[in-house]
């Protein structure tokens, strides 16, 4: 039985009971005298109840039906795609409107919460991605990064820090620094920075650290940057420590200093001759015309040497700095060899040295800078002529290496050979084999320039094999196609 019907029946029964009691009271008081006392009251009650019941029960059924519709409508509003409309009768409209309004407010609130949840999810994804990015950056850094909190505990450390300080990153997190870091001075620096409470200034300290002092690991110099991190209350929340290894910078600085020193020595030497002979001419110290002519020749030779030296230094510097102009084209290596032989053959003949070329069966073309490659062949063959005694033989050959898809040029001589201890330093700037300085003059930069042209400009390889007294065999290989153009294609 529905609620409305049940309620109407209860209402009818209550009404009949009420009428019955009312009539009873009236009979008792004598207001109703001409009726049998209780049977009359009962009859009237039944009649009244029947009349009221006849009107109330359909009303109860109707209200049940509408209440059922209202319930179905409200239930259907839970579905996002529901489009059901509800037309309530007048008597039910205030209730239905109240429910509808409450539902709308509920929907708005639900939408707001849903939006908020989506925003939270997005910001969570973003912060998660940012955290991963920061971690990736930190772990790929060559500098050590260490973050500590206000209790001087390790919050974050990258792998490089662990290498420098000799601890395990996984075990270090949330540990006090003085337990994980053996270097007391560094711990003190971090604690002092945290205690200073100064969140504006960044401290730089140069300090040496050993990753394992107990096992005698040598100390390395670091530039240590210390900065306080502010927390949300703008007080010191911790310290960021950055450990920057200075050994490479020191090495580069030393190399620069050595280069300047060697360059200065090499430049001053021909300049000294020029200066001295010019003064001798000015002072009239040349005995005769022949001596004067010799002085002029020396000045000219030394000026040329100075020029060559400066050219080589500039060329190497340009290649190292990556600012050299490279005219890349298809170069036939055989032409570079023929041009070299044409240039150096008269000089070789003067020394009684024979120059031979081994012709290759196929065209040997590479993608490169024609003038630079000629310079390499010229330098190597010129060196061979310089250090090969009278009656010697120099053979220049070129062939293709199908495995590496490159052209290999070899210059073999029957010269003095190179001492084994000199071989690793042979392509260094300004290196000259001590014993051979008197045999021939050179800038000490020719082979270094060749190495730069072959390896840096053409991505090839250069090398030497030699036995003292048995001659030398210099070789270089150039890829047939420049790696850069393959990548571009």
């Amino acid at each position, binding site marked *: 039985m529905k609620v409305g019907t049940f309620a109407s029946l209860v209402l009818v029964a209550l009404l009949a009971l009420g009428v019955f009691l009312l009539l009873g009271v009236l009979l008792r008081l004598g207001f109703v005298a001409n009726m049998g006392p209780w049977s009359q009251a009962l009859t009237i009650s039944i009649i009244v109840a029947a009349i009221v019941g006849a009107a109330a029960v359909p009303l109860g059924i109707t209200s049940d039906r509408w209440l059922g519709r209202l319930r179905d409508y409200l239930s259907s509003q839970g579905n996002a795609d529901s489009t059901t409309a509800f037309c309530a009768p007048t008597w039910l409209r205030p209730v239905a409107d109240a429910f509808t309004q409450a539902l709308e407010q509920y929907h708005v609130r639900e939408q707001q919460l849903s939006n908020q949840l989506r925003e939270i999810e997005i910001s969570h994804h973003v912060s998660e991605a940012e955290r991963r990015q920061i971690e990736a950056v930190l772990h790929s850094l060559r500098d050590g990064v260490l973050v500590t909190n206000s209790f001087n505990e390790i919050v974050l450390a990258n792998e490089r820090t662990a290498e420098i300080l000799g601890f395990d990153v996984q075990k270090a997190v949330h540990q006090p620094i003085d337990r994980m870091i053996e270097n007391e001075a560094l711990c003190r620096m971090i604690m002092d920075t945290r205690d200073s409470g100064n969140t504006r200034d960044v401290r730089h300290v140069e300090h040496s650290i050993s990753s394992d002092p107990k096992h005698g690991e040598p100390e390395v110099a670091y530039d240590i940057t210390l900065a306080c991190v502010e927390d949300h209350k703008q007080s010191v929340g911790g310290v960021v420590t950055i450990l920057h290894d200075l050994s490479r910078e020191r090495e580069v600085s030393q190399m620069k200093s050595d280069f*300047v*020193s060697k*360059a*200065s*020595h*090499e430049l*001053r*030497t021909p*300049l*000294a*001759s*020029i*200066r*001295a*002979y010019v*003064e*001798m001419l000015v*002072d009239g*110290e040349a005995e005769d015309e022949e001596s004067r002519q010799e002085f002029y020749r*020396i000045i000219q030779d*030394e000026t040329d040497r100075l020029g060559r030296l400066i050219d080589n230094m500039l060329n190497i510097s340009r290649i190292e700095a990556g600012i050299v102009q490279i005219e890349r084209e298809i170069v036939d290596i055989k032409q570079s060899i023929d041009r070299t032989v044409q240039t150096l053959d008269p000089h070789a003949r003067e020394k009684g040295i024979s120059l031979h070329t081994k012709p290759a069966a196929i065209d040997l073309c590479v993608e490169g800078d024609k003038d630079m490659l000629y310079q390499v062949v010229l330098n190597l063959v010129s060196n061979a002529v310089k250090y090969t005694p009278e009656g010697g033989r120099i053979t220049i050959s070129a062939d293709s290496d199908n495995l590496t898809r490159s052209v290999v040029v070899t210059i073999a001589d029957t010269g003095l050979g190179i001492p084994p201890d000199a071989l690793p330093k042979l392509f260094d700037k300004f290196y000259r084999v*001590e*014993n051979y*300085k*008197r045999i021939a003059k050179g800038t000490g930069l020719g082979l270094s320039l060749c190495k730069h042209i072959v390896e840096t400009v053409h991505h090839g390889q250069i090398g030497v094999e030699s036995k003292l007294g048995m001659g030398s065999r210099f070789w270089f290989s150039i890829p047939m196609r420049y790696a850069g153009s393959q990548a571009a294609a």
Partner: protein
Amino acid sequence: MMPKRVLVVDDEAHIVQVVTLKLRNAGFEVITAVDGEEGLELATRERPDLIITDFQMPYMTGLELCQALAKSPETAEIPILMLTARGYALDDDDLATGNIKDVLSKPFSPRLIVQQVQGLLDDTDGDSQSAETTSEAA
């Protein structure tokens, strides 16, 4: 009076040639060597009055030559004039090596070399004459 003998040691032939010519024109007797080893051998054998040596040479550097000369009483007193093409001045430790009296940077003036040599030899003569006077008085 016997001309003073100067030993010139340098691996740069042009430098040896020009210094030799300038000193000979100034009345000195000159002997030459092309590296430290040859310089040491000549200094020990010929006992020159003064040595001019380059700093950077193959086999034995100028500094090593000075150290070797200082070890032998026969050559320890020979005054040395050092030539150097290094980009920076020699440090005090290097200068305290052997009997280095002065250092000239390349490029140098041959005129100045002659003046320096004369000055150093005059000083040495003064010292030895005063030493002789002292011994005569004694």
